[in-house]
């Protein structure tokens, strides 16, 4: 058994969460509420230490004026706390939404559309590879057809949309199968923690 308090706390909380598998119970509920409080507090402290202090307090302390702009925007957002000042937050939110919408447009255009298209137009591979290239093209076109909203799924369009669904289902199955692996890995690591670091019944470090 471990002699470290931190390990004991971690192990007991681990067991509290595992108890959820049986059913909702006070131990799980305790862990849940502890987690919400501790994580919200941690995030707040991290933001203070890594964003607010260096980018606002220290810069203003050095006589910079520019940080007053986000400071004011930030204070406006706090207006949401009261009904009467709630409308003020709109300005900061509008700014914030504008930023991320603006970044999204070119980024998605480049990485998700052009890069994918550039790859999709590669010439077919020779020999048997051509069969795969053809299947990829077929799948690509039929899945696009499934996501074509301006026409009903009838006739040729309906047929290709249905083929598209098949490709989608295979992709979903692949994701599901792959995910099983990831989740089991996490469980293995938790068990390694309980059995090795806490109970000390597994070898290795």
């Amino acid at each position, binding site marked *: 058994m471990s002699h470290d308090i*931190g390990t004991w706390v*971690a192990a007991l909380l*681990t067991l509290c969460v*595992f108890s959820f598998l049986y059913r909702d119970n006070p131990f799980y509920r*305790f862990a*849940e*509420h*502890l*987690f*919400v*409080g*501790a*994580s919200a*507090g*941690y995030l*707040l*402290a*991290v933001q*203070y*230490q890594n964003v607010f202090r260096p*980018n606002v307090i220290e810069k203003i302390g050095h006589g910079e004026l520019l940080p007053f702009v986000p400071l004011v925007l*930030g204070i406006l*957002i706090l207006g949401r*706390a009261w009904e009467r000042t709630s*409308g003020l937050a*709109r300005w*900061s*939110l*509008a700014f914030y939404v*504008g930023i991320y*919408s*603006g970044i*999204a*447009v*070119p980024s*998605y255009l480049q990485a*998700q*559309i052009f890069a*994918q298209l550039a790859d999709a137009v590669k010439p077919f591979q020779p020999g048997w590879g051509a069969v*795969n290239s053809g*299947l*990829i093209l077929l*799948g690509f076109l*039929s*899945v*696009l057809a499934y*996501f074509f909203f301006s026409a009903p799924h009838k006739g040729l369009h309906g047929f290709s949309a249905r083929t598209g669904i098949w*490709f*989608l*289902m*295979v*992709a*979903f*199955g*692949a994701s*599901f199968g792959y995910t*099983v692996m990831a*989740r089991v890995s*996490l469980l293995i*690591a938790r068990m390694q923690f309980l059995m090795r670091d806490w109970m000390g019944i597994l070898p290795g470090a």
Partner: protein
Amino acid sequence: MRLGPIVVTFLTGATLIAIFFIPNRAAQQTQSVILEWADIVYAFALLLGSISLWISHQKKLQQRAEGWPYSAVTLTALALVTVLGVTQGVGGETIVGKIYDSVNAPLASTMFSLLAFFIASAAFRAFRARNIEATLLLLTAIVMMVGRVSIGEFIWKGFPPLTEWLLDVPNLAAKRAVAIGVGLGAISTALKIILGIDRSYLGRS
């Protein structure tokens, strides 16, 4: 009254799109400053959220509502971690760092590992060969689950290449089409906001 914020969104959004096409150093630096401002606004939003979290649990505590002792847990954790983190820092050697390692980290990884159990029960319940689509999903998932681990190779040498093929051909085709569709959807959603076509984020009028 709503016009102001809409203009703000348009200007920031359009500026960030433009910056993407301008390699000029001044433009790139402007982008960094704007993103830093966004971070500061986020920090205030986090403060706002944490205040509302505090108020709602305090209310439960005061009214002795059902489960109020749990609210006390959340409040204590929130206050403690925030105060310690702001005054003493959040690095590995601080108290908050230790709390993080023995409370937040194990809770998060154990919650995450519960998915290993859920994925098994979901597979058992929902993977039923009811029609072609469901059967394709089920078969692909089974091949992936068996083929990606050592035992798959043990059973049949062809499993690993088959999983590779599934990922490289049908999966790639479907994901590529979805990526392009999602990319277009994302661009149009972002453009709608920048151009003021969709104002729902401000509360429609």
